[in-house]
């Protein structure tokens, strides 16, 4: 049976302590710049904050994973190299990388450091994963959220590294690391700047009838009726019209949250080593609730007890949730 480590998000030092206290096996976090894919305003760590966070986590036997999972544009690679140097100096337990140049730099300069392949590298076949393992000594791959459990089981048998899968949180629709939608509308790149639907270009317009439009860079991404649940204007979760869909529809995906709590036993059985909870941009209350619930569930499953799935399902109560591609390929 796999270890079923719980990998938890930390957008701020307080969130990191919250995740550690709630039972995370590892937390992942990033610096306050473009070197990670959650480069959001007011979020993330200064080097000093990271040093304290590593001490706090290590004192409680929790690992710290540093996300360096964006793609440096030519001429700016040094920012990523320095981030890696700083992370190594501060004693983080692994780097989560996507760019081959960054991976190569770390493999050569900090050969003792453990490398995890970010979901942003979009390695979705045994061959692609083996490429990164053999080239850079990658020890773990974070799988894209596009595979079914039988496919994950199959990959597990064909690769020399551990598998981490997302189990909860925001449900990205596009292949990560291959999406320029935000840049097309806003001029800020998900891959190069770590930005997705930047808040500075988001606005909400309330209309007289109680409906509300959410806009990104002036483009209406969705319009919600007075009683309808709202969403953040993420382009891949917007409603649009097409020639034969004049009423407007969710062209890519409805605003749903991934929740694989019901599939945990199967994922463990398929050989998944680590479960990742999305949400570095979410609050401490989210981190506390989600980490605690999944800690309990994973412990129960590992001890051979029935896990209380209801608690996990309740975490997204009121919000729509999905098992996405994991359950059936009809999702595609």
């Amino acid at each position, binding site marked *: 049976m796999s270890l079923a480590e719980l990998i938890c998000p930390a*957008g*701020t*030092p*307080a*969130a990191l*302590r919250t995740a550690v206290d709630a039972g995370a096996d590892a937390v992942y976090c990033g610096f306050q710049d473009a070197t990670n894919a959650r480069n*959001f*305003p*007011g*979020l993330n760590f*200064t080097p000093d904050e990271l040093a304290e966070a590593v001490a706090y986590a290590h004192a409680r036997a929790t690992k710290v994973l540093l996300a360096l999972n964006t793609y440096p544009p030519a001429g700016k690679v040094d920012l990523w190299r320095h981030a890696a140097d700083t992370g190594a100096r501060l004693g983080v337990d692994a780097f989560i990388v996507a760019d081959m140049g960054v991976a190569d730099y770390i493999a050569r300069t900090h050969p003792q450091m453990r490398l995890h392949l970010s979901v942003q590298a979009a390695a979705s076949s045994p061959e692609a994963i083996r490429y990164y393992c053999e080239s850079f000594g990658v020890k773990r791959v974070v799988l894209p959220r596009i595979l079914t459990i039988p496919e994950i089981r199959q990959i597990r048998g064909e690769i020399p590294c551990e598998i981490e899968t997302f189990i909860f949180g925001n449900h990205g629709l596009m292949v990560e690391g291959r999406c320029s939608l935000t840049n097309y509308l806003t001029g800020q790149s998900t891959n190069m700047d770590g930005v997705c639907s*930047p*808040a*500075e270009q*988001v*606005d*909400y*317009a*309330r209309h*007289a009838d*109680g409906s*509300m439009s959410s806009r990104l860079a002036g483009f209406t991404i969705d319009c*919600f009726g007075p009683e*309808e*649940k*709202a*969403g*953040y204007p993420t382009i891949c979760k917007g409603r649009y019209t097409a020639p034969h869909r004049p009423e407007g529809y969710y062209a890519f995906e409805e*605003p749903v949250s991934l929740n694989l709590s019901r599939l945990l036993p199967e994922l463990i059985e398929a050989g998944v080593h680590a479960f990742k909870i999305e949400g570095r*941009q*979410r*609050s*401490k*209350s*989210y981190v506390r*609730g989600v980490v605690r619930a999944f800690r309990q569930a994973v412990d129960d499953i590992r001890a051979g007890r029935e896990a209380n799935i209801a608690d996990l399902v309740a975490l997204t109560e*009121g*919000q729509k949730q999905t098992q996405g591609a994991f359950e059936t390929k009809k999702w595609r």
Partner: protein
Amino acid sequence: MTPGTDTAPPIRVPGSGVIARLACGVVQPLLSRTVRRIAARHPQLFARLGPHQRTDFLIDPVDLPFALHLRPDPAALIFRAVPRDAAPRAGAVIRGRFLLLLELMDSEEDGDAAFFSRDLEVSGDTEAVVRLRNALDDVDGSIAEEAAAMFGVPGRAVLARLRRAYSHDYERKTA
């Protein structure tokens, strides 16, 4: 959208006129003292605000008789109660029931979830709101408890009563 052009949410107390002005006069000294103390204890809060230290936030608890004007500038901190008809032109407006705002401040409630369920309304500069949220979220423990504790046993009692009163109110209205 520009603040001030929006329509009123359904549940709201007047927040203007004589009562509002009297209420503001009563709470103002407490607010000033509270916010200065909290700021002194949590200096890291300001770094996360970045350029929005000089943004005017209007925090509008729809079930209180007044709104709150926050300007989180460490050099010239403003936190004051204002009648709604005398509110400043704000860079960002955060509007919701008092208890929800209290819980958001303490990270007891998840802001995204509250927003998606339409219990929380945000207008104006969205980045300012996100920064404020992230800055408050990086404070360990409860800001509300901290503030209440400044006023000793009576302060804690008032907070407990507020929480009870406004949660009943909330349950009644959403039942």
